[in-house]
């Protein structure tokens, strides 16, 4: 199930009856994923601003600010949230011929 937390529960054969050993969760649920746009030498600032506005619904000022961050720093985290949605956004950005990727937020 997407996003479900899975925990391994093993019965410790060496322990007392009823002893339960909990492994660490197999998935880190609730950790948001960031959508990253990377700079490239071809796509213009106007095009990146327009694309960001269309895909994410941001206003002109915010889209411009994010685009300039891409331009000056080489990349910008333009959105964060659930992984499935991040994948959808990266797909749309790739269809717009922008270089984009997803990563765990905060990494």
């Amino acid at each position, binding site marked *: 199930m997407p996003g479900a937390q899975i925990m391994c529960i093993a019965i410790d054969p060496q322990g007392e009856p009823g002893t339960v050993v909990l492994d660490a969760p197999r998935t880190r649920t609730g950790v948001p994923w960031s959508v*990253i746009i990377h700079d*490239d*030498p*071809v*796509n*213009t600032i*106007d*095009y990146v601003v*327009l694309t960001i*506005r*269309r895909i*994410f*619904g*941001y*206003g*002109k*000022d*915010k889209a411009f600010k994010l685009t300039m961050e891409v331009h000056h720093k080489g990349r910008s985290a333009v*959105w964060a*949230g659930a992984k499935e949605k991040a*994948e959808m956004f*990266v*797909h749309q950005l*790739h*269809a*717009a*011929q922008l*270089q*984009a*990727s*997803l*990563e765990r937020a905060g990494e």
Partner: protein
Amino acid sequence: MKSIQINLENGDVELIGMDAIELAMLERLSGVSRDKGSDRFLQPDPMDPGDDSPEARDLRDDWMNLVVPELLDHFDAQISKVAADLDARVPGECGDEFLVGFGDHGELPELGGHCNVRIPREHVEDWYGALNQARLALDARYDLSGEIEPVGALETQSPAWRQAWFHSRFYGMLQMPLMEVMQRFSGLPDDGESRSPFD
């Protein structure tokens, strides 16, 4: 090319008085866009290239199997629309018949008459995308993004590089009026306010 006209009411664009060289450069779009260098946008990496975790590998596999074929179809459709609009060209204002005989890669076509090409509003974004594909592929293959200083240094580059550079500049020039149409007819509010539920 004599001029590029934008119909501000309906967003149609017309390329007026294109010559044989310009037409040849546009007819090469499909070949240029699928040449070396096109992998960057045809097979984009959804994860950081340095991430070799099992999770990243899984997503890359999914991307190759599910997303990349869709992207290719989408990008092919853009190029097909450009080809269709080029095929529908009409003799230009100079009125002469077009001489067909564009020669092989690297040779100049025979100069003949001129033509007009109409880009209907509904194809503007496809043209933009097709031109972009070509520029991305050319830049990846020839590394065109650096400045040429002094201007005369262009002559020191290889013929293939110079041809790629001129093609890329021509495609970029055509993208400018198309971007104008895309911005004017985007339907987006012309203010700084966000309409996003994600803010």
